[in-house]
């Protein structure tokens, strides 16, 4: 990953350079024709990995009647299809829905996770171990199992086709609690006591000390929550019947079904749906790596 270089942080830069080339200086793989070979390999792999994206972009930019003639040759370009897809596919509305739901879910998940993590990390209360075990146990339950009943619950609350219905089941996760709790536990224990001596209660400590110190982890959780919410597919498909309440994901299915014979329109829609989240990822790459690897290397 490209890292932002802080001015004047010399040792850090050296570290990240070392990080980037774990095996490099041993192999001296970066020299001479081996270097050329490696670049060639990297380029070939890049081509393969990006091929579907390339095809999508071409299809979205070609005039409708030409899209399948030479599907992989760049010839004529137009933004007409993108425009049509945008207006006809109701994509603006879907994007907005997805965005609203994802923002609600993200904010709520971070808040609920920070609070419950604080309780587990800094407070003493009866049945703590048991309650924590219950939290962890919920991590094992796949969404598919609870779906049957959740659909009923949402229905009986009158939340079909609503933002509440799309967002509320995901306002808290054990994953977030667990992630933030781990970070809280890594804070020096003396900090809480020093804050106590300084006269800070728990809320004060949470606001003044704990939250500022776990901000990077909160960022990672936020991005993770945003992506998970944005990429939800099955849930919006199940609880959305009104066209206007579709998210981008379920909306794409509608688009694909309705315009099955206009692949360029579908591809234009796909491209429009992909761009925002791609942009988000480019901006928050570092948080993403943190979020995705939180479960790996060190439990």
């Amino acid at each position, binding site marked *: 990953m490209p890292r932002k270089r802080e001015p004047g942080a010399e040792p850090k830069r050296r570290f990240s350079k070392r990080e980037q080339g*774990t095996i490099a200086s041993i192999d001296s793989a970066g020299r001479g024709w081996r270097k050329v070979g490696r670049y060639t390999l990297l380029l070939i792999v890049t081509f393969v990995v990006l091929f579907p994206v390339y095809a999508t972009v071409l299809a979205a930019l070609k005039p409708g009647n030409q899209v*399948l003639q030479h599907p992989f040759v760049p010839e004529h370009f137009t933004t007409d299809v993108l425009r049509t897809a945008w207006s006809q596919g109701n994509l603006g509305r879907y994007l907005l829905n997805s965005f609203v739901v994802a923002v609600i879910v993200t904010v709520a998940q971070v808040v609920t996770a920070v609070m419950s993590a604080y309780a587990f990390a800094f407070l003493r*209360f009866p049945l703590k171990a048991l309650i924590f075990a219950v939290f962890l146990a919920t991590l094992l339950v796949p969404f598919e199992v609870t779906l049957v009943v959740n659909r009923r619950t949402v229905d009986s609350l009158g939340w079909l086709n609503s933002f509440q219905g799309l967002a509320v089941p995901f306002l808290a996760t054990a994953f977030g609690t667990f992630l933030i709790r781990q970070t809280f536990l890594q804070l020096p224990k003396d900090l809480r006591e020093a804050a106590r001596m300084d006269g800070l209660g728990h809320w004060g400590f949470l606001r003044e000390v704990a939250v500022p110190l776990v901000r990077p982890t909160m960022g990672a959780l936020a991005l993770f929550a945003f992506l998970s919410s944005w990429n939800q597919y099955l849930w919006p498909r199940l609880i959305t019947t009104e066209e206007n309440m579709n998210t981008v*994901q379920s909306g794409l299915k509608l688009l694909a079904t309705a315009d099955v014979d206009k692949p360029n329109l579908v591809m234009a829609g796909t491209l429009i749906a992909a761009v925002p989240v791609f942009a988000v990822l480019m901006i928050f790459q570092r948080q993403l790596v943190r979020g995705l690897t939180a479960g790996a290397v060190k439990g």
Partner: protein
Amino acid sequence: MALARRTRRKETGLAALMLAPSLVVLGLFVLYPLGKAIWLGHQRCNSQGKACKSNGWDQYTDVLRSPEFHHALIVTAKFALLTVPLGLVLGVGLAVLADRYLKGIGIFRTIFSSTVATSIAVASLMWLFLLQPSTGALARVGWITRLFPVIKTGLLNDKGTALTAVAMSSVWANLGFTFIVVTAGLQSIPRDLYESAFVDGAGGWRRFTNVTIPMLGPTLLFASVVLVSRAFQAYGEVDLLTDGGPQPQGSTTTLTYLIYGNESTIRNNDGLQATTAVLLFVVLLVLSAVQFRSFDKRVHYAS
């Protein structure tokens, strides 16, 4: 002790307050529905899925014995076998390939992790465009169809290739995730291990098998658990690419699709859906347990 007791009570109250939001959501949307689903699973419903009533627990054994469940379980298992090992190998391969200090390597890393930005719907539609029966883009390229005639008739239409085709799109969509996780794993391997292996005269391949792979143990375990559970929950790619078909064989009807798919025969039967979903849960639990156990003996946790 008065102060202690007072702080205790205050802390308990505060903890209750702080845990309440999470507990309410998790209780209402995970624990309650899980319990309820297990309960629902033993209710027989009529064909409209209404008027369910308790009828003993043998619905679980009935579903477990049913050919539909068997079929979906086999399809799902095949799907996992097609996606997980290949996904891991490609992920490790890409990560190792990009784990060098070369000019511009950051760009390649960004590209390799980019599929993480594609949702399952976006990824599936991209592949649909390439593979779509009759109108797929690949079918328009002469030399490809001459090389693989099946592309002409449509990979997704052929009962022999449909599942593999869906699996390919899924592998591609998950590649970014695996790449990121493995790259982070590679960077956490202490450098002196490579140096000592180098001093011992181990060549590149030996270093890879004797240092990289064992030290990646926890990372690979994590990635494989995630990939297996994604495979067993695969829905979007099936829904968009094949609708569970081609029919009548239902060649790509995975467990999740059997429960919630458009073509599902139990789409309106909450009881049967619950039964099947609970069985899926059990299968996933067993799989995770097996993975942790078999890895546990071989995994080297870096201290």
